[in-house]
């Protein structure tokens, strides 16, 4: 056995250990797309609630029972299209590397995300039912951030930072009520785009 063989063998072991325990098929570009959907959704919601020519800044009680159903429809559309895009692009990426998208690692990843995501979703619903609309943006950001940090041990380590930043944004949104939509757009839109570009740059070139 010569040295090259040995180094090869060790490299193979390392890559197998990583490949088998981390789900690397999440596409960076899908992060960019998902962030863009969120921005479009936030813009549409903004126009709907505040009107097209309104000034940026503090708004109070503009969200009311009248426009809540439309806002929920917008939010759900963004969610569904995002999940669809993320899944489709992950499947393409997995196919390219000869793996399946549904393997033990991706299952572990979803399991890790499920508890915080469901809790956050239900909590948002409860706030909607109670009319505490000011709490929704921060709730979504905080619990989504928790889900991402939990998932990060099964995929790109950068995901942990996205999660932590989302949690911080959510907490800030709680301190500054009335600016929820800006925090939401930044957390779900801009940060996803930045994260997607970083992952694309580091792992997909």
């Amino acid at each position, binding site marked *: 056995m010569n*040295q090259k063989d040995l180094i090869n063998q060790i490299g193979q072991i390392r890559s197998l250990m990583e490949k088998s325990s981390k789900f690397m098929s999440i596409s960076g570009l899908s992060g960019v797309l998902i962030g863009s959907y969120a921005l479009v959704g936030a813009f549409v919601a903004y126009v709907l609630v505040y009107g097209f020519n309104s000034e940026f800044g503090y708004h109070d009680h503009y969200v009311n029972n009248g426009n809540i159903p439309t806002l929920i429809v917008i939010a759900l559309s963004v969610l569904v299209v995002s999940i669809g895009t993320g899944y489709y692009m992950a499947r393409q990426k997995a196919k390219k590397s000869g793996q399946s998208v549904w393997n033990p690692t991706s299952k572990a990843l979803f399991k890790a995300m499920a508890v915080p995501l469901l809790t956050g979703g239900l909590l948002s619903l409860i706030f909607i039912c109670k009319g505490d609309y000011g709490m929704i943006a921060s709730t979504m950001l905080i619990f989504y951030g928790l889900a991402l940090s939990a998932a990060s041990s099964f995929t790109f380590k950068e995901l942990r930072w996205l999660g932590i930043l989302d949690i911080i944004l959510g907490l800030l949104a709680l301190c500054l009520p009335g600016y929820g939509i800006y925090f939401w757009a930044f957390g779900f839109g801009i940060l996803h785009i930045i994260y997607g570009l970083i992952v694309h740059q580091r792992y997909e070139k």
Partner: protein
Amino acid sequence: MNLDLSLYDKVLENRVRLQIMSVLVANEHYDFNSLKELLGVTDGNLASNLKSLEKEGYITVEKSFVDRKPNTKYRKTDKGQKAFENHLSALENLIKQQYK
């Protein structure tokens, strides 16, 4: 050149067996089909190597059914973990020797 080969594991000299152990050391457990997909080997090849690792006491096998389909899970044993670590040290030593 006097090499200390006491740590070198003949069982793990086989590439597929070493790969199986790498996966099982990194994960709590792994099932047959996922292993097959990950390593890109045939059923027969994988099965016979798993068998010899089991016989050596490096892994344990757990058979069960999921939706009536057989689902076989493999786990490393402490002995297997130790053997894997020793073997890696041996490979490392071999490389160091050649640098001298």
